[in-house]
Each structure stands twice: as structure tokens, then as C-alpha cells.
């Protein structure tokens, strides 16, 4: 069982809880391979996806996960701006609870919103990404995908390349990977490095060549294209030149290394097209595994009431 009624971040999870989710994910992955991809685990339960940021893949993944568990799923999309003008977040959330939701899947541009909702709601809250804080199900599906190719996380060397400062995916992965005993490196320009990140137990590299040396896993992050207008980078071209994952650079890693990306990708910005589609890429596995992992999370939280 999970200790909390909600999944807010990897930071708060114990190693046992992470392993529990991963074990359950394996079972659900098996379900997804069947002819009839559905189990009755959450029949009669209602999952509401409340997304304040545009998202196609994460929302679709959560929707499919809930449907595969036989839950009723409702998508509640709001643009942040309309809420700023009108209804408060608290009122929106309380309304959804009053409508009878059992699980609330929340994505929001402001860090801490899932924590805030968890405090004011009785129902379970699943963080589907909050600001630059955490994206726990992404990290869990990344761990699950790594385990599909590697025996164990402990002892692996993993490089995360890109916009670490603005990346909730990087944060959640750093928490998860270090908890499970991996050696984590972050590779990025100094302008995209968050303050004092080395205190989270990672090694920082500004040279991609040095950082990639002999790693088992390479995670590339999406570079938001507007970063160049804010003075973080001179140009996307220069970014690709300095930090793009090319097949040449991939040769610096271990022979059996895998390449990951949380999507959506900018080919030619953070990752070369041939690497994205190459034999070491497990990017589409990540997408498929995402459903199984989210099924596990919804299942483990689904019956829990405070």
C-alpha cells in the first residue's frame, strides 16, 4: 500500500513504494498485451483529469489507463487564464469533488498545486506535472522502461541532458533514480542549471562529451523553444551544436546504452533525428509503458480513502 492518499511527487515516496508501483505496473503491462485490454479494478470509480496546461499525451495516457481499469473518466480542461479571471482553483477543485470524483489527476503550470489540492480535498490527487516541481508518473514510467532493458537501476550511470532548470521530469527522475541507487549526471548549459542542484546528489557537466562517457542511459529533455528569447541561449542552432544528442556523441556511451525522451521531441534541437529513430531509442516503449504505470498508480490509490 502507498502511505499517502495521493501521489504528489517521487520526493515523498519510499523505495518500497516505488518498487510496489513498478511491480504492479508489470502486471498491468501484461493486461495491455491481451486481446481484451481491460480489468474491472476501478469499476464504479470516477477519475477526473483536470489539466490547466495543454497536454495531449499525458492526458490521453491517463485517460486510457483509467478506461483500462474500467473507471469512468471525465476530462475537465481549463485554460489557466480563464480561472485567474474567474473561479478560484479551490472552488474548481471542490466542485469536482462534489461531482463525485474519486481520483483527481491534476496538471498545472504552478508548482505546489497538487500539494495544495491534496490539503483541501478528501479525494486522491495524482500529480500529472506541476510547474518545475515534479512529474512523478513520468519518472515512474522511465524507471519501468529502464528496467525493461537493464536488470536493476542500482549501479547504472544515467545522463539527463537539457533544460534541467525548468524540467519537472528531470527533478522527478533525479529523486527516483538516486533513491534506487543510480549514479545521475545532468548535462546542460549553466543558464539552464537550477540553483544548488548538486545537493540533490547529482554530478553536473557542461560538456556533453564528458558527461556522456560510459553511461548506460541517456535521457534527453524537450527544450522549450521560447528559451532562446529569454536569454538562456543564443540560438537553438548553437544549442544543438553544444548539447544535441547526435549519433557521434552516442558512441561515447556504453555500447548497450538506451536513449529516452519524455516527449514531445524537437528533432534537430535536442536530439538528432537518426538517434530518435535509431536502434538504441526506447522512446515509444516509454509511451506504451506509461499506460501500465499510470494504471498501477490509479489502482493503488483508487480504493484508498483518508
Amino acid at each position: 500500500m502507498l502511505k499517502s492518499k495521493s501521489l504528489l511527487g517521487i520526493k515523498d515516496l519510499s523505495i518500497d513504494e516505488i518498487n510496489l508501483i513498478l511491480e504492479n505496473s508489470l502486471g498491468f503491462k501484461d493486461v495491455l498485451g491481451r486481446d481484451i485490454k481491460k480489468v474491472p479494478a476501478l469499476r464504479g470509480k470516477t477519475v477526473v483529469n483536470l489539466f490547466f496546461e495543454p497536454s495531449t499525451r499525458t492526458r490521453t495516457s491517463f485517460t486510457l489507463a483509467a478506461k483500462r481499469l474500467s473507471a469512468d473518466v471525465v476530462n475537465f480542461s481549463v485554460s489557466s487564464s480563464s480561472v485567474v479571471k474567474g473561479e478560484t482553483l479551490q472552488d474548481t477543485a471542490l466542485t469536482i469533488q462534489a461531482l463525485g470524483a474519486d481520483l483527481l489527476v491534476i496538471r498545472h503550470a504552478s508548482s505546489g498545486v497538487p500539494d495544495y489540492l491534496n490539503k483541501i480535498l478528501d479525494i486522491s490527487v495524482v500529480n500529472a506535472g506541476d510547474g518545475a516541481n515534479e512529474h512523478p508518473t513520468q519518472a515512474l514510467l522511465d524507471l519501468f522502461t529502464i528496467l525493461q532493458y537493464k536488470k536493476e537501476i542500482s549501479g547504472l550511470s544515467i545522463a539527463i541532458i537539457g533544460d534541467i532548470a525548468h524540467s519537472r521530469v528531470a527533478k522527478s527522475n533525479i529523486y527516483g533514480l538516486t533513491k534506487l541507487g543510480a549514479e545521475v549526471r545532468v548535462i546542460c548549459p549553466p543558464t539552464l542549471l537550477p540553483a544548488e542542484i548538486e545537493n540533490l546528489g547529482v554530478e553536473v557537466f557542461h560538456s556533453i562529451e564528458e558527461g556522456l562517457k560510459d553511461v548506460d542511459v541517456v535521457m534527453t529533455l524537450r527544450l522549450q523553444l521560447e528559451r532562446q528569447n529569454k536569454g538562456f541561449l543564443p540560438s537553438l542552432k548553437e544549442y544543438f551544436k553544444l548539447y544535441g544528442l547526435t549519433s557521434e556523441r552516442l558512441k561515447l556511451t556504453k555500447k548497450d546504452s538506451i536513449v529516452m525522451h519524455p516527449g514531445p521531441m524537437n528533432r534537430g534541437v535536442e536530439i538528432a533525428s537518426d538517434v530518435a529513430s535509431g536502434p538504441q531509442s526506447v522512446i515509444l516503449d516509454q509511451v506504451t509503458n506509461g499506460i501500465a504505470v499510470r494504471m498501477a498508480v490509479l489502482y493503488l490509490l483508487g480504493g484508498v480513502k483518508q
Partner: protein
Amino acid sequence: MSILIRNGKVIDPSQKISGPRDILIEGKKIKGLFPRGKGPEADKTVDASGCIVMPGLVDMHTHLREPGDEYKETIKTGTMAAVRGGFTAVCCMPNTNPVNDNISVTEFILKKASEEGSCSVYPVAAITTGQKGEMLTELEALIKAGCIAFSDDGRPVMNSLIMRRALEYSKIFGVPIISHCEDLELSEGGVINEGLISTMMGLKGIPKAAEEVMVARDLLLCELTGGRLHIAHVSTDGSVNMIRDAKARGIKVTAETCPHYFSITEESVMGYDTNCKVNPPLRTDRDVSAIKGGLKDGTIDVIATDHAPHHYDDKNREFDNAAFGISGIETAFALGLRLVEEKVIDINELIAKMTIVPSGIMGLSKGTLQKGAVADIVIVDAGREHTVNADNFLSKGKNSPFNGWRLKGSVIKTIAMGKVYEWE
């Protein structure tokens, strides 16, 4: 009517008094101080046994929110909260709506204060029209209307040339220019101190440099112009060091800090507590130590409250969108007493930094128990503990990170302009 305050320990740094005295008040004035037991007969006596009797506190940095944001605070509630906290004079910042950048707003504030206020109110006017940082306000007219200092508080004057002009032009009148030191480009989007905690919480950080580059700039401009610079709400070790160096070089600068900058750190924000969201942000242990060092050696002259009341709805929301500010006027003195307990400063220094020193910087005749002064007096039981309950604040703003804290030092009575307020 005459009142004799008996048996108390009087501490009045303005007269270097620290000992048993009886105080006689007649009407709205202090008639005189007498050795204990030697005071004359009066219509009424107040027993201050076991208590400190001191001048009413002077807050040189208060947000009363009126006009414009009366749902957060009014002159009536803000001055009542002040009196509850032991303050009998407040200097209210101009970032109201409309901004106090013209005499009609100043006159409105003073009229309201005289009709509904519980203590003296001294308006601080904006340095620039609309606090836009572009054109100087009419200093002469505003001073004549009753403004005592100038500040674009809440916003910095980003344009260095305008800041230079303000420091120069204000020399005609000898009034202080109070600087809210923040480089808006460096702080843009930031909500807490930049560091490991901002990284862990995924919140945009405000680097210490956002404050310090402006402290450095303003110290240089102060040196250049010979104007009277006062630095508001100092929060970092770097600022303290630069102000210390500037003072050693003979630059005419004064500085304040606020109780939250020496009482709590950025760690209080963990859990996304919006009551800890304040600008400048709560910093680190190292900064807290430096602030204490600055208070101890006199680098920081004043403890002001930066009382920034907000409505519950403005704080009960996404951290990014929650308002900045702490409702602090009712907890300031008790938090100050912790410095005495920790032996950072002694009780005389604490009271000086909250009475005669800010009064002097602002050019007021407050913060003293001298014969003939207005009867602004506070009676405090320094040993009496109480639990902070923000719901019981007289301020409309219940936004306190100190809610639930057990604090030593309770205001027993406040006498403001001769009127006695009894608490508990």
C-alpha cells in the same frame, strides 16, 4: 484628566533612561517623570508593576492599504492593529490605489487618520508619479500636505538617473528617500529565495543579487549626491556588508530590517505555505545571522514591520499567484524581544531601534517620553508568554507565518495620544 503610571521600569533610549520611574500624563501630554513613588496625585493611576514602560513604538514601514484595497486593511483597522502591537505612530507606504503621489491622496489619508485612526499616521509619498519610475512627484507640495519621506515601495526606481535625481532634489527638503532595493529583471517571476529550496520546490527563485545590486547602486548614488538614503527591508548578508562598509566610509545611509528576516528562513516555505511568501523573500540561516550581526553593530538602524496585510483569498491559492506580504505589526515587538533573549542586542537597543531611531530618521517628534511630548506610551510584560493567534489579529490581514508561535512579551496597555487601550 491626569494619569499616573506607577511602579514600572521605564526604558526611554531618547533620554537614556532605564530604571524605575513613575510617569504623569495630563490630557494628551507627558507632564513629567518621577522617581518611583514620588509622582504626584492623579485622577487615575495605572499600576505597571513588573512591566516595562516605554515610548510608543514607531513603525516607519506600514501598509494601510487605504485608499483602494480596503478589503485588505483600512486606516481604521491598520492603526488599531498598530496600537495592539504597541505602535503609536506609523508611516504608511504610498502603494495604494490610487498611489499617494499627489496631495489629494495625502489629504485623504490624513483626514481618515484623524477621523478614524487610533494612532498617529505619517504618509510616505511616492518618489515618482504612479510609482512608474519616470517623473518625480511634487516634493514640496507633498511635504506641505504632510508627507514625511518618499519611496516607491513595492517597486524599485529602476532608472538610475531618476534615482540620482530623487536623491539630489530631496536635499532641498532634507527628507529621506526610502529605497525598495530590487532589480526587477533579476527577480522577474521569482517567488522565494533562489537556492536549493527553490530548486526542490520547483519555484522560481529570487537571487540575493536582485537586492544587492540595487543596494550597491543606491549606496553609490548616495555617495555621489549626498542625499539621504534609507534602505528598506534588508534581507541578505551581502546587503548588510555593503551598508556596513558604506557607513564606515561616511556615507549618509540608514537601513531597516523586519522581524521575519531575523526570525525565520526560506525553510518555512516548504509545504508551499503562502503566508511565508514575502518580498524580499525569506533567506537562509547565513543571512539571518548577518542581519543579527547588522542589528548588533548598528549597521541596521531600525526594525520596521513592513506590515503587509492581505485578504485570505489573496493567500489561499497557487503559490505563484498568491500575494507577497506578512501581516506583522501585532507580532513585531515580541519577535524583537527574542533578539534580547538571544543576547543579540539589549532591551534598550531594541526599543531604540523601534522608537527614537526611526522617529529621528523620519524627522518626527515621536518615540520619546520627554516632558511635553505627546503621551504615546506602551506597557509591556516582557516575561508574559502568549500564543500568536492570527484569527484574533485586529488587522484585517491574518497572513502570519508566526501563527501558533509561543512568544514571550505581551503588550498590556497602549496609550496613544493620551487615550488608554487595555488589552486582555
